[in-house]
């Protein structure tokens, strides 16, 4: 009897020692909801940090450098402690300051006016950041006469994105912003980096038809 059971026992042990854990691979879990969206947004608090983007508009291709300047003084005076300013510049020329607001639950673009007023309000991220999460916001895109309502939706979380320069970003969130006017903007935010890529059908977007991170 032992002569029989022993080989079977060995085979069973071998089979199991191949790894109880290795019998199957772990179940791929859906990424957990993110409640602090700051980690997926621009490093606005990191004064002096800069990100370089390659921007394509309808007619031109240029490189924009965004340098973080921290909390905006005027914003603080107004009591908006979450307003941050960045310096946008092209090669050999300074463009303008660009303003953002960011807290744990929301991160949005104010535009180039100031912390006190916005001409291109754009709610980039809203907690919880999880696939299927949606939110809406109104955007005038600098116009006094037209306001579009955008619906944003998180369509992917935790995916990997590889750029043409070979740089790979893990844990990327994809958000699609769509309006009834026909504009569809898609932005990809990488954890720890912020905006890494965006596409837009809006010809008047400050970020052009396409903007892609090229250096950090």
């Amino acid at each position, binding site marked *: 009897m032992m002569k*029989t059971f022993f080989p*079977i026992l060995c*085979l*069973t042990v071998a*089979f199991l020692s*191949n790894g109880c854990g*290795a*019998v*199957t*691979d*772990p*179940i*791929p879990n859906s990424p957990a909801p993110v409640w602090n969206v700051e980690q997926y947004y621009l490093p606005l608090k990191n004064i002096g940090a800069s990100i370089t983007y390659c921007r394509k508009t309808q007619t031109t291709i240029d490189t924009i450098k965004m340098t973080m300047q921290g909390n905006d003084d005027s914003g603080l005076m107004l009591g908006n402690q979450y307003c941050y300013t960045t310096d946008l510049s092209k090669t050999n020329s300074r463009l303008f300051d660009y303003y953002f607001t960011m807290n744990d639950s929301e991160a949005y673009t104010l535009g180039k006016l100031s912390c006190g007023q916005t001409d291109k309000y754009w709610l980039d991220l809203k907690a919880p950041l999880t696939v299927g999460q949606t939110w809406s916001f109104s955007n005038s895109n600098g116009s006094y006469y037209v306001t579009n309502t955008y619906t944003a939706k998180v369509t*992917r979380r935790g*995916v*990997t*994105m*590889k*750029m*043409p320069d*070979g740089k*790979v970003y893990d844990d*990327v969130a*994809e958000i699609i912003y769509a309006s009834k006017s026909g504009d569809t903007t*898609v932005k*990809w935010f990488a954890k720890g980096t912020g905006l890494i*890529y965006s*596409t837009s059908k809006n010809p008047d977007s400050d970020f052009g038809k*396409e903007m*892609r991170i090229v250096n950090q």
Partner: protein
Amino acid sequence: MTSVIEDRIIEYFEGSLNDADSAELLHRVSVSPEIRDLFHQHEKLRETAHSAMNSAVISPSLEASIFAKVEAMASAKSRKKAVMVFSRQSAVVAALAIMLISGSLGYFVPKYISDNKLAQVAALTQQSPSQLLSTLGKPITNNLTSLIPSTTSTSIEKTGSAVIHSRRATSSQSDNQLSQVHNLSSASTQDVAVGNNLMSKNIAATEGSTTELISSNPALMPKTSQVSDLGGNRRSLQDLRYSDEQTASTFEVGIQTSSGFTYPASATTISPFADQRLSLGYHLTENNVVGLRVGSGLYQQLSEMSPTNDGGVVYMSRHIETKRNFNEELFYTHLFPISLGAPFLLEFTVDGGIIPNGYNIGLECGVRIPMNEHFMFDAAFALSRIHTNSLSTEQIVSSTQVTKPVVFESVDMQNTLNGRLHYGLLYRF
């Protein structure tokens, strides 16, 4: 003198007599009519007791099934080991198994054995000793009557599937004395009424035809070169049913279907009859089978990485999907004959094979239930690890050359688990 020669005869039938003494005994049987008569009386008594019990309990279909099983346990290769496999001990075990199968007899026979009295035979047959002896033929009656000892010492020995009832006599006894023994013992065997009925039926069936029964069954015929001792070392259960030229089945073919589950990615319900497989096995020995299986089944495997271009981005996605694939595998099965009311076999199998773009290894545990000499119902629960040969997401990302941003959406699950309940038929040939 009579007791000594009778002791020899009894020892001969028990298989405990050595070859020299056996030869001497057979010689004396051949030259002495008295000894020959005594020899034949014992032989017929043993055969009658055996056949009575045997056919009283086992229905023809069950008997066929059992002997098919027994036959299956002696392959051509293992036949050389038949002496070992079907040794006295094995035969006893097999006999016990048969008794268990037979249910009621399995209950009655131990009592029958333990009481150790000739009268129990009469009680079981619900006949008087005279009637019982008359069923064995007049010469036996006369002889046994004359051989009943004053202090009755009856031994009933069970070896193999036979119950051997032998009697040692030192002096003559009358029919009345035998009746007394019968009356005493019949009172203690009232609780074996069912067995009595069965035995009665059998005795009735064999009454007056003992000689015919014995002569019609070669296995029961005494041979000079082979002791017709059911409990001896030289006879097996198989020999009771099949002649030596009977060939054993060494191949088996099976067809099975299955249902079950897949872990962890059960995207699709594995409905009944989802999988099918055909197996061809070869019995290395009676209880060890190797073979080849081909099947069609549902497997959870990684899909190919498929790119889709959406505007300025390329999406590369890969996920677990349910695929129907063919597989070919080798298996090794070890069988454990078991008898719990009916004969069946436990089977333990290890297998491994290939599937498109992967492989599977598994363990199975199941049962085989003989339906007749050739067919068996087979059911087994199998756990198989399904492995898909594929690159990890990291490897794919690093090896992919991109000209525009690429979004990789992929899971790394190369290994899944299939749980299946396979059920079907096996045919041995």
